[in-house]
């Protein structure tokens, strides 16, 4: 760490201590409110390093070429056939390398000025209620996010910023597929301190300022390459309790046991064999393999990226995941913000008993396996059954998670009805889905709803009753003919889309009716008692007498709604909603700089 860097850090810290001179830029309508801060001075370098490398490389290239050209006597006269304006004659008279070199230098200076401009006019502000990011001078943009709407706070450290000791802090809110505010880049420790402050305010840990006590210091974590450990960061690690850590052997083996790796191996073997048999086709064949190899290799690398040195911690604010091979990421899923889970078990992992867990958390958006958003939906890349149990206990805050784990495993491996807590599709489904038929099914516990499916790539989705947004029932012509229906359980936007396929129609109707009933009472059921899962939705009554549907009940009272002021400790995130725009000031939030 250079002395210069140190001073800039000090300057930044001084800046954090209170309203600085930049305060004049704050608009008058903002009353309370902390000062505006700039990003770390090195962030332009971290953001634009590719451009800089290109410019410097080009410059070096021309310079070296020019020097070599000078020595060899080929000094690259300008093309005499072109007729440049007279002013340019002087420049064009120069040796080529000086000309291009200076052009590149000018370009670099302009780029640097541009980066400086962007940096200078990018400011952020963290107040007790909002985080605001303001960019640009000519085209001014101000984004703001209410802190009580923030669903997750992630720290992301790509390679170059990591080398520079920087990190980016992402604020995720519901309702936006993309990250709503990204502070890019802050000093790593500063980002962690800020995150801790804000999570304390957002998550249930911040309720009443209760920090849930400093857990037994399992500071086992992640030695950060950012080198300078400060009081704030060690205190943070003291509050982290290691829950899971994926052994490297399992991570690598799991990658070896994937379709993409096997295809890659087969291709490699085929290439070797073919090159012995037909040596003359080797070149075109290799060329033909390139796209496939690139695509598969990319998939592998991405999967490794999310499972490498994967660790899950419990913090007062929620679950924290740390992982990364090249780009280190630290993700925090606040307690009670898991909207739905999907547990997958691919064919090749079945023997080892591993599964992959995807999750819907508001703000992450995206589809599974898509861009970085898809990556972030992975909650556990390679989990054993025991890991699943830990995840359910900690992530869903279920006291007796063994039941749920057992049920999920049944959902992954079970088939048909026999002695199962799952209600599966009727036998006539074999006309439309002969292979998967016995895998379709659903189960209901008093807090969760499970839907299973898939034969080779088995899956079991879990969605808490109180996270269900709406229910869809659809019937195509074949389904009507066979008296079937698909019931989709609408979760928030994300990788997990639980659907119960091909249920008996009467069964589906009864299910929907009961589910709506449960949705009303779910917040109360959420008390910390979980009785063993009961098949409360037994196979439906004979189709002759349809069970009463929700629209046929007399108007229901809403005890659940009115008694909502008694959330269990685990459900503190369900604080009575500040409906539409009431500014909920999270308690216990201090100024970001006031920590330590």
């Amino acid at each position: 760490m250079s002395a210069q860097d140190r001073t800039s850090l000090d300057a930044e810290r001084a800046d954090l201590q209170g309203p600085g001179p930049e305060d004049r830029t704050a608009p008058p309508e903002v009353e309370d409110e902390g000062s505006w801060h700039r990003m770390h001075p090195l962030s332009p370098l971290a953001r634009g390093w590719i451009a800089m490398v290109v410019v410097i490389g080009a410059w070096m290239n021309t310079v070296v070429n020019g020097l070599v050209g000078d020595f060899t006597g080929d000094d690259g006269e300008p093309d005499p056939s072109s007729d440049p304006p007279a002013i340019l004659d002087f420049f064009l008279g120069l040796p080529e390398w000086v000309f291009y070199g200076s052009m590149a230098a000018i370009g670099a200076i302009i780029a640097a000025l541009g980066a400086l401009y962007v940096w200078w006019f990018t400011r952020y502000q963290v107040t007790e209620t909002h985080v605001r990011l303001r960019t640009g001078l000519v085209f001014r943009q101000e984004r703001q996010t209410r802190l009580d709407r923030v669903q997750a706070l992630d720290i992301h450290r790509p390679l170059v910023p990591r080398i520079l000791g920087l990190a980016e802090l992402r604020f995720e809110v519901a309702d936006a597929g993309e990250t709503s505010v990204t502070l890019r880049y802050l000093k790593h420790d500063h980002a962690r301190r800020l995150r801790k402050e804000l999570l304390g305010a957002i998550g249930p840990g911040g309720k009443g300022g209760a920090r849930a006590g400093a857990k037994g210091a399992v500071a086992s974590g992640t030695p950060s390459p950012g080198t300078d450990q400060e009081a704030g960061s060690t205190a943070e690690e003291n509050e982290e309790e290691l829950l899971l850590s994926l052994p490297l052997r399992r991570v690598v083996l799991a990658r070896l046991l994937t379709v993409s790796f096997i295809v890659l191996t087969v291709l490699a073997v085929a290439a070797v064999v073919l090159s012995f048999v037909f040596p003359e086709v080797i070149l075109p064949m290799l060329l033909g393999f390139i796209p496939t190899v690139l695509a598969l290799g990319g998939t592998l690398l991405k999967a490794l990226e999310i499972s490498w040195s994967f660790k899950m911690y419990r913090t007062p604010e929620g679950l924290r995941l740390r992982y990364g091979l090249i780009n280190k990421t630290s993700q925090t899923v606040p307690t009670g913000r898991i909207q739905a889970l999907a547990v997958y078990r691919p064919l090749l992992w079945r023997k080892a008993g591993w599964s992959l867990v995807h999750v819907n958390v508001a703000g992450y958006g995206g589809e599974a396996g898509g861009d970085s958003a898809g990556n972030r939906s992975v909650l556990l890349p390679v989990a054993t059954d025991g890991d699943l149990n830990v995840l359910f206990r900690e992530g869903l805050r279920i006291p007796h998670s063994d039941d749920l784990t057992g049920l999920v495993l049944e959902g992954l491996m079970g088939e048909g009805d026999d002695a199962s807590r799952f209600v599966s599709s009727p036998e006539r489904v074999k006309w439309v889905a002969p292979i998967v038929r016995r895998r379709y099914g659903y189960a209901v516990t008093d807090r969760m709803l499970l839907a299973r499916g898939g034969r080779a790539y088995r899956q079991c989705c879990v969605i808490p009753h109180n996270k269900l947004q709406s229910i869809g029932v659809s019937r195509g012509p074949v389904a009507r003919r066979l008296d079937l229906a698909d019931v989709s359980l609408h979760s928030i936007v994300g990788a997990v889309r639980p659907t119960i396929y091909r249920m008996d129609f009467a069964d589906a109707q009864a299910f929907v009716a009961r589910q709506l009933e449960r949705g009303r009472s779910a917040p109360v059921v959420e008390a910390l008692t979980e009785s063993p899962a009961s098949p409360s939705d037994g196979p439906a009554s004979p189709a002759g007498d349809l069970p009463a549907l929700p629209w046929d009940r007399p108007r229901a009272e809403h005890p659940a709604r009115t008694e909502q002021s008694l959330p269990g400790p685990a459900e503190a995130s369900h604080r009575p909603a500040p409906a539409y725009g009431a500014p909920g000031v999270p308690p216990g939030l201090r100024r970001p700089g006031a920590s330590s």
Partner: protein
Amino acid sequence: MSDPSDLLTPLRPDDPAARPDSSPGQGQWKGISRRYIPVRLINEVIGGVFMLAATGWPVVLKLLGPFSGASWWWLLPWPALVLVITLVNIILTPRRVRAHCYREDPDEFLVRKGLLVRRLVVVPYGRMQYVDVNSGPLLRAFGLAEITLHTASPQTDTKVPGVTAEEANRLREHLTERGEDRLIEL
């Protein structure tokens, strides 16, 4: 506009929304306005004309000369297909519009639609995030509006096109009020 209930396709027993006779105090299925049929027809015709232009230009070029070498077998099937699809859409439009209906229950908002694939969406009011009321120029010309109830899930498809402007306003107020009463945090 007459009693909206006479617009409804009677619910067949195999409809996802089928139910025993409704008891008093429960909501009634309400169809969308009959005036939406011409709107939808105009839309279908406009879409058909565009698709016809997109697929039919080689035919014109053949008639004018430049493509005279091309076989009719290569040129004709595409515009013909577009014509058939548009025609089917036009024929089915009145039935589709009549099949689209909604219902306000004490605790849920329900929308059903579809002829071939029949769909029902049930939204508890507490899950509602916001209500959208849109009306494009064509809808406005017919005094209609389109109302959508949004939850946090993109799968919740509760678009109700073609309700009258007054009904849209009433629905918006009503839904917002009920949603605020029962809002459930994410």
